[in-house]
């Protein structure tokens, strides 16, 4: 198993990565390109698991070369768990990427990072309800201070693939329900 760290640019992903991994961190070259990404190991339940910091992307429909590589990296690591790092003060657009990854069938765990920034801006998110709706673990984190990281690590094992149809249905979506 590998763990991929994905998210928009500027959500504090590299700080996130630094917190999760130990001292053994190195920069790798993505084969055939000049794109570099960080690789390291994190300890989950007494085991060392490889963690890859995928370059930031807004969506899985790449708009530039940098994003193309992120999508390829996701596709090449089919057996991975994806830790999707969201900026808690910009949840909606973060959810777009998270949903895309969920739709592709990956087990996802969502980190609502920059929780402190969201609090500063008086934005409150019901993480428990969000978790119930999506069916994937949702953990508030603040990478700069380290808050929420213990919980995040302990909950990686709870990440399972979710059918998007279930989420749509639970929100009263689908053709029939949309009318009511």
């Amino acid at each position, binding site marked *: 198993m590998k763990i991929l760290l994905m998210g928009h640019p500027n959500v504090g992903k590299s700080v996130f990565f630094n917190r999760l991994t130990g001292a053994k961190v190195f920069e790798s070259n993505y084969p055939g390109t000049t794109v570099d990404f960080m690789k390291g190991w994190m300890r989950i339940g007494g085991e060392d698991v490889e963690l890859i910091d995928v370059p930031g992307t807004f969506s899985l429909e790449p708009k530039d070369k940098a994003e193309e590589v992120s999508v390829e990296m996701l596709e090449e690591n089919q057996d991975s768990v994806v830790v999707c790092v969201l900026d808690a003060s910009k949840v909606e657009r973060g959810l777009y990427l998270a949903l895309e990854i969920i*739709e592709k069938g990956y087990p996802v765990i969502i980190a609502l990072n920059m929780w402190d920034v969201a609090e500063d801006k008086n934005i*409150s998110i019901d993480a428990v309800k969000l978790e119930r*709706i999506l069916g994937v673990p949702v953990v508030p984190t603040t990478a700069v201070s380290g808050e929420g990281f213990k919980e995040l690590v302990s909950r990686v094992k709870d990440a399972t693939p979710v059918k998007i149809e279930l989420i749509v249905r639970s*929100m009263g979506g689908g053709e029939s329900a949309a009318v009511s």
Partner: protein
Amino acid sequence: MPLSVDERWDLIDKISKQTVTFGAYKHTLKDAIAELTVKPLTGIPVAIAVIYGFWSFFCDFAGTLFTDGFMVRLFDEHWLPWLQSVFPGGLGNPLYALMVDAGHIENGVLVASDTCFESFGVLTSGLFVPFGVVLWAVVAFYLMFAILEDVGYLPRLAVLVDTVLHKIGLHGYAIVPTFLSLGCNVPGVTAVRPLETRKQRFLMITLLAVFIPCGAQIGIMQDLVPELMGWIFLTLAIGYLGFGFILNKIVPGKSPEIIMDVPPYQMPMWRNIASKLWIRTSRFLLVAVPFVLLGCLIVGLMYLTGAMDWLAAVFGPLLMGWFGVPEETVAPLIAGFLRKDLAVGMIGGLMEQGIMTTFQVFTSVVLLCIYFPCLATFVMMLKEENWKEFLGSIASLVAMVFVYGGLIHLVGIMLGVA
């Protein structure tokens, strides 16, 4: 079954309605600063102050504190004399010339060098350039850059310079690869990827490769010719914008406008900065040191075998006639293929021998910046561009060097300084 784009946003709206509440909110001091640094009236003075602070730190920390205060003394007063006294062979011996000191002819007599800029041995200049000067410049640069990056200042700078950069077919984001290239062109070339179109990436890579000197080069220039730095940067900036303007007109393709997220300011996390600094610096050492040593060796061998004199005789007329620099400049230009810092260091050697006028020093330093990217950058360009683009970059590069180099010479003649 994947959703369509609209279905997905629709779903997100529903989810967000149930889980997210935007409370009443007063603008804080942080927001005020965030807005002031992006508004032109206040933002531009702040940007100038930030860049000035960056430059002062670069000069004080790297130049004055480490290089002049410590390294120059260590190398010129202890390391060089010690090697000169213990290394077998002595002046005139080929191995001694390659490894320690080639010396130079003064009034028909071969004399020993006084500084590690002049001596040009693998063990003297070869170590002094990377460890005595360049390393500190690179560390200072990347430290400051990592802080600006982590604080979140760069996107604001991008907004402020967008108007100007849009005129040359790029947009504000291009300030990131440009700025990063001032540390090293290699990651700079990599950083063009977030530009949306092939045209923009081509323009950016070509302009970087030609007009942006790297931190290693700037460190050496600052050490050798601090009084010329303003003129050098001005000349390069004019070239960057002027040729960018022309290339934008010639190169086909689209130049989309900026669409960019401006993240909030963040307190930098030192561990993150330390890790970035370590990765970038160690990578620099890995690339730079072998090339500097190799460069010293190759240049030394070319002197010993007479190849350099032959090249100087062949290219001398072109160099003197078109660019207005003496034929001896051929040696640094050749070294520049491998490492720009090493090449500028050689000009320092020529200066100390009194071969060049100030204007010739200025011209040759600028020529070194623009005439060819270093080997590592060259390899990176090959990887990032396709063949057509790569050849296009090279062709533009050659054209720009001749046009701009000639133009500088012409201006010098008109001002009466060339």
